[in-house]
């Protein structure tokens, strides 16, 4: 493993295999918390924080606890517990020691436990047999891809509030159609290989 291969892995996780536009991981917060660029950025940063730490934590749990005991089949249960505990812990830690960051990210943290992007990145890390460094980089860059998507999309949506669509399309349908158009743009990245 070289520095270059890690860089490629990160590039591919951010753009080519973007969690939202090519894999649909994390669509709920993507469609739900993207009305305003500021909140979208907050959510994206909170996800990035949790996913990087959880990438490392679940890797450790899998390789030091589940694999030696041949309990691989319990990974979904174990990972979701680790993620839930981690989110709780991060919330308490930020509340106690970094209040500024807590006031910025605090309200998004509880939502992250049920964000499928976090669980799927943990499961993908195991499936792709990444080592520790790759696992952390993958978690971090997949979350960056998520942040990129949600912030761009929030920018689009904040402009859409001015639009006057037919009544049936108001709200969610229009949001989905806009997401479809953005997904088309992102599909240009798929197939980029080195």
């Amino acid at each position, binding site marked *: 493993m070289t520095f270059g291969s890690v860089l490629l892995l990160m590039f591919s996780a951010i753009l080519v295999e973007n969690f939202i536009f090519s894999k649909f991981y994390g669509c709920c917060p993507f469609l739900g918390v993207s009305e305003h660029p500021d909140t979208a950025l907050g959510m994206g940063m909170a996800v990035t924080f949790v996913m990087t730490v959880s990438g490392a934590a679940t890797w450790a749990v899998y390789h030091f606890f589940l694999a030696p005991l041949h309990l691989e*089949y*319990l990974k979904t*249960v174990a990972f979701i*517990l680790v993620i839930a505990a981690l989110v709780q812990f991060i919330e308490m830690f930020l509340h106690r020691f970094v209040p500024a960051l807590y006031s910025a990210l605090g309200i998004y943290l509880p939502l992250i436990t049920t964000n499928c992007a976090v669980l799927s990145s943990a499961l993908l890390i195991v499936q792709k047999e990444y080592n520790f460094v790759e696992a952390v980089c993958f978690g971090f860059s997949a979350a960056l891809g998520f942040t990129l998507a949600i912030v761009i999309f929030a920018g689009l949506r904040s402009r859409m509030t001015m639009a006057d669509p037919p009544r049936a399309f108001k709200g969610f349908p229009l949001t989905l159609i806009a997401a479809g158009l953005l997904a088309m743009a992102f599909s240009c990245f*798929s*197939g980029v290989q080195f």
Partner: protein
Amino acid sequence: METKSVKNILLVGLKLLLICAVVAGVVSFVYAVTESDYQKNLDTTKREAVEAIFGETGLDLYELGEDIYEVKKSGKLLGYSAKGTGIGFGGEIEMMVGYDATFSIKGISVISHSETPGIGATLLEENKTYFEAYMGQSGEDVDADAYSGATYTSKGVKAAVKEATERLIAALGK
């Protein structure tokens, strides 16, 4: 008051632990019941892939390494078979590659892939003639022209065939 809250926390923790233990027990039970059937499925998939290549059933497969087989039928050597994976457009393409007794490629069958339906998937599932370019090739430098419109799938196929060939060569020590 103090002791009561400590007791309370312990009780809550204990209940949660109990739920976890019961869930883990149930899952382990299901695992124990289903594991053999899952392994059978895996074996069947590989066996079917090999049988599709050699066009015969009732083959004897002798494992030379992980997913590398010596294929015999009633004692007679028919050839070899090895699994290879390559990265296509949508992810990994897993393929079984069959060789005749002189190590030239006899057939290819796809085990799993996640290519785009209608584009890459059509190449792998319906357009079997594409694989004919590989037939009869041998050695590590297998090659075929990319299929236009599905360049990345073609690249993935090439990488998988190459990996299978290399693994077979390594396993036989030649």
